[in-house]
């Protein structure tokens, strides 16, 4: 182990969701849209924890919630620090594809209503009357938190809620500082660390600096890998921005460049990024979970 601060290691859920950013062919060959039913995925999460992972990072989808329910039933949920990414954009895009944007809105209103979160419903209604975007953000977050809590139970340790990059990067591009401030404000009041997933890390840091939003209290989830894959505008610029940060707020994703590298090929590169707070890495089975996290815990 190097002499840096112990890195946070999280197991990610992309392989469970049938996602491969290397190739869709590869994801399909692993078994299609959903490769791991809740039980199998829960085993992989627990094996990862046994071998050095600190927590589980997931998009708030029905599959991820079923994994949380399994961990709760097995009385293991208390051991897992949870990092939830919202929204699970794929589900919303799919509904919009089939029913159009009005259908998506109706479906979302129905879900919030069925969630039984009276507070969220009332706030949503009030926000709709006032056309208050901050109110919509609060309603949405209340809804997602209620979904997580009802699946994971009271023992769960929800450490962070992260904004998906599709929404976050759009907000960044459109200069919607209110979106980020609302997100941070709502979660901070509930002692949950606000986080943001971005594929435009240097742009993100520059904007937050312009807006005067403190990076010390948030997490930034962004790709870091040897290939420079998804590192925009360039690998060098991302590395420079990371090195210049005053606090370690960054969790690296795509560290294996979506399966382009093996864990043993990337560990030296990751170790060289001193300012990283941690990494999120997906694994497809228990053997991979054991090998990957053992190696990363030992070397990072």
């Amino acid at each position, binding site marked *: 182990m190097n002499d840096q601060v112990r890195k946070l290691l999280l197991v990610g859920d992309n392989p469970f969701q049938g996602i491969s950013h290397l190739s869709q062919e590869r994801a399909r060959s692993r078994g299609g849209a959903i490769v791991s039913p809740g039980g199998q995925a829960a085993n992989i999460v627990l094996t990862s924890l046994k071998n050095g992972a600190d927590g589980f990072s997931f998009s708030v989808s029905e599959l991820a919630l079923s994994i949380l329910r399994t961990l709760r039933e097995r009385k293991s949920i208390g051991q897992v620090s949870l990092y939830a990414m919202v929204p699970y954009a794929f589900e919303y895009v799919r509904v919009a594809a089939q029913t159009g944007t009005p259908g998506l809105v109706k479906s979302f209103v129905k879900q919030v209503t069925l969630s039984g979160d009276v507070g969220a419903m009332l706030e949503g209604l009030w926000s709709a009357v006032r056309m208050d975007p901050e109110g919509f953000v609060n309603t949405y977050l209340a809804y997602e938190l209620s979904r997580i809590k009802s699946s994971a139970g009271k023992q769960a340790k929800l450490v962070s809620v992260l904004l998906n990059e*599709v929404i976050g990067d759009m907000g960044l591009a459109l200069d919607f500082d209110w979106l980020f401030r609302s997100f941070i404000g709502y979660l901070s009041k509930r002692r949950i660390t606000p986080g943001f997933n971005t594929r435009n890390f240097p742009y993100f840091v520059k904007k937050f600096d312009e807006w005067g939003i403190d990076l010390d209290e948030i997490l930034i989830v962004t790709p870091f890998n040897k290939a420079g894959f998804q590192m925009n505008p360039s690998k060098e610029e991302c590395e420079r921005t990371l090195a210049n940060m005053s606090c370690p707020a960054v969790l690296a994703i795509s560290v294996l460049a979506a399966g382009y590298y093996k864990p043993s090929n990337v560990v030296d590169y990751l170790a060289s990024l001193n300012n990283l707070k941690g990494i999120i890495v997906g694994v497809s089975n228990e053997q991979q979970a054991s090998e990957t996290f053992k190696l990363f815990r030992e070397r990072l």
Partner: protein
Amino acid sequence: MGSESLRKLRFAVIGLGKMGLLHASLLNTFEDVQLVALCDKSALMTRVCRSIFRARARSTGVVVVNDLDQFSELGLDAVYVTTPISSHSFIVKDLYAKGIVRNVFTEKTLASNYDQSKEMCEFAKKIGGITMVGYMKRFSVVFRKAKELLAQGKLGEPYSFSAYAYSSDFLGLTKDSKSSASRGGALRDIGCHIIDLALWLLGDLKVSDVVSSYEIGDSETSASFTAVNSNGLEGRFDISQRMPNYRMPEFGCFIECPQGKIDVNDDRLRLTLGDNSQKIWYRHDLKDNVCFSLGETEYYRENLKFVNSLLENRMCQPNFDTASKVDYIIDQVRKKVAKYE
């Protein structure tokens, strides 16, 4: 001349669905562009967008309107049309007729049929502005690599191809889908991308036969057809929105040439030479980085191309004329289906 003295290009976006917001977002990251107006006919979307853009409106003057006429006084350099396909033709003609703008970007497909496309091309020619249609797959690093390999000529003239566009969007749907119709059916929704790629990579094609077509409601959710060119190239297109396990739409093409084969899809290109040696390029190998990534990186490159064409006042591809060829092929397929029925 210092950059401070250069006026920014003034852009507006019509249609505030996901594509409209994506283009508006990307354009807002360009130093040479000022996003000045957004338009959607839906009163609800206009209200929502006014509310979420309110802070920006104060600082930069972006306006959200629900009537095109309100664009007249804005001195626009270009307009993006990202409304449903069925409205492209009348919106673009309206923009030209009212003298609102000369330069137009339209999301794919250019129009609902070839007659409308032809009319739009004629209008654009008369106006003389720069046009572009959102066939963004041309800006993917892997498909660009395929184009580069074919252009080198070392593989020889292609003699056979098979191309596909698959998604799971309508897998399992049994009743009429209004959304499918508004998206133009499988041919216009996803098929158009692979047809455009094939035309770009292989040159002009003519539909020779329709193998199958499956319809839900008024629009097809799958179609297969064959095509040829005058040099003896033959190939087949398979397009479906009902394929299992296509989490995201996927596009691919297998091209056979005398000296080798190219197998390319959204993620990678596999080149097999005559001696069976292979080389694979993933996106990772092809410098897939952009200044600002939203959705796929090809969206940024596509917008960059349009913006640069305006700045340099030169033609842009794929323009209206080029894109009308896709509408022509789709019409040919639908005519053949109707004839068989």
